[in-house]
């Protein structure tokens, strides 16, 4: 068996080429990792602001508004966040109008995020202190309630002290029934809507109404379902990518091998001439090809992950879902590699057993 183990080492040039391909692959993955390292930060950011900090309830656009339920959710288990709005926070030019934001219990760090992302700024008073019952509101809300800074306000079952007035360049901060026509905003929630901007200048009012009509409550169960569904989609895309790259890489390796096709045939013929059985030669080649295809498969799995992360980061709708590749998705790609291996095995078998290998050296009769 020592000889078989050395078989690959003896094919130095091929091994060097293979190593080159592997190194390029690793380099590619490293570059992708470096470029998309921020993706992980994004994940932390999204989940931190949603599940852990419990500071806001981001309500995705959907038919059938139910403000009461929103209010209930707000006070009960506002911990859960969903999808599209998160994306809109990060990419405000995308469909910004189709979401509402309820602000509550923002920490200093969260506040920085808000200031940076949705350009909310303080215009009077001071920002609330972390861990207190202070809140900031838009001036319109105070006007409607005839309130001022320092006064108390009851929202749902909680009493808050107004510490400051806020406004944003891109968001209206709306807070009372008067602004929520047709919707029973008994919870008197602070709702943020996109403010007049270049994109929605002409259709703002229409969009606003549409947004309101599409408010809904998303339950944790629904969120879970949505997460699962999206993850399923991503896994399918992942399989697609993996198959694509597996075929491309395996094809490239096969091409490299084909570059030496005649020489390789001579190599096999020499072995056969000197007493290697065809079975032994076939076993050696298949072992070698299995190794090459394994490398191709590993590269395809890695590169697919990198590319899919890239796509999710910049092109897909990042529903707050990080790429969670299921093990069976990875296993699925093995079938492709096995298929390629099968084709290769049949092809080599035909070459070895259905033709006279020695013709390569001796010429045909």
């Amino acid at each position, binding site marked *: 068996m020592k000889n078989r183990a050395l078989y690959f080492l003896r094919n130095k040039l091929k091994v060097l080429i293979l190593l080159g391909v592997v190194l390029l692959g690793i380099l590619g993955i490293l570059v992708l990792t470096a470029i998309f390292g921020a993706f992980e930060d994004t994940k932390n950011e999204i989940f931190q602001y949603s599940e852990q900090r419990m500071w806001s309830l981001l309500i995705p656009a959907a038919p059938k508004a139910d403000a009461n339920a929103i209010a209930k959710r707000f006070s009960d288990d506002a911990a859960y966040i969903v999808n599209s709005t998160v994306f809109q926070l990060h990419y405000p030019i995308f469909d910004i109008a189709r979401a509402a934001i309820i602000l509550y219990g923002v920490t200093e760090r969260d506040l920085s995020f808000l200031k940076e992302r949705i350009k909310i700024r303080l215009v009077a008073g001071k920002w609330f202190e972390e861990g207190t019952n202070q809140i900031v509101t838009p001036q319109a809300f105070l006007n409607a309630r005839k309130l001022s800074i320092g006064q108390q306000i009851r929202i749902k079952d909680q009493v808050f002290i107004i510490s400051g007035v806020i406004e944003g360049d891109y968001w209206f901060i709306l807070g009372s029934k008067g602004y929520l026509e047709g919707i029973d905003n008994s919870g008197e929630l602070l709702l943020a809507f996109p403010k007049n901007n270049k994109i929605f200048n002409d259709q703002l009012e229409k969009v606003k109404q549409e947004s309101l009509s599409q408010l809904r409550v998303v339950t944790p169960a629904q969120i879970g379902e949505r997460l699962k569904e999206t993850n399923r989609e991503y896994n399918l895309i992942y399989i697609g990518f993996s198959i694509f790259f597996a075929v491309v890489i395996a094809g490239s390796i096969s091409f490299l091998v084909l570059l030496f096709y005649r020489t390789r045939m001579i190599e096999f*013929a*020499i072995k056969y001439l000197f*007493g290697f*059985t065809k079975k032994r030669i076939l076993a050696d080649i298949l072992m070698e090809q299995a190794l090459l295809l394994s490398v191709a498969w590993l590269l395809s799995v890695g590169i697919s992950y990198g590319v899919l992360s890239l796509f999710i980061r910049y092109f897909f709708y990042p529903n707050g879902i990080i790429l969670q590749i299921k093990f069976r998705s990875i296993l699925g790609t093995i079938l492709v590699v096995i298929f390629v291996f099968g084709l290769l095995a049949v092809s080599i078998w035909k070459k070895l057993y259905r033709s006279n290998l020695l013709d390569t050296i*001796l010429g045909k009769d």
Partner: protein
Amino acid sequence: MLIQINDLQKKYGQTVVLADVSLQINSGEFIGIVGESGSGKSTLLYTLSGLKTIDHGSVLIDSKNIAKLKQNELVIFRHKNFGFIFQENYLINYLTVKENILLPVQQITKEVEKRVDDLLEFIKVASLAHKFPYSLSVGQKQRIAVARALVNQPLILFADEPTASLDAENARNILSLLSQYRESFGLTIIMVSHNQGEWECFDRIFKIENKTIREIKGSGS
């Protein structure tokens, strides 16, 4: 090892290339097979070594008729007994010199590696062990092909015009190597040659004429 060919006949399609060929070769002999181009010299060599089938007769090597062996048995027999050199060296360019020599080896052991080192010394290319064939001269390549043919310590070496593509000096070197090796290890060599200058090396020479064989130098000539 005694080689005995009885009434051998070989056809390509309907064309008879060799007919009524009978000869006997003793162990340790250096045999030359000569003849005009296309006379069937290489065909005879290939049939003797079992690389090509025969249509009639027998090829007995130590009383074993290799014409009757099954494919796998023949492969194993070749492995144990035969070495080959051709006009073309058939070295693999992506393998080093040493790796090329090791190509016919099925089980690489320290003993084999030592043997390869000795062979490299013997053919005077030890310093080239880790070079690739494309960087070598034609003469060096052919010497490596000789080492590859000898690495399994064959009892019979079949050489099909191994000097045909070499200049006179390199051709002499190759023949000298083969002769030395034969003297040292008792190897039987059967070599096809078209160069009359080489004939003095052979113990016996068989010439192929009119599809059959005739001894023109040796004990029976």
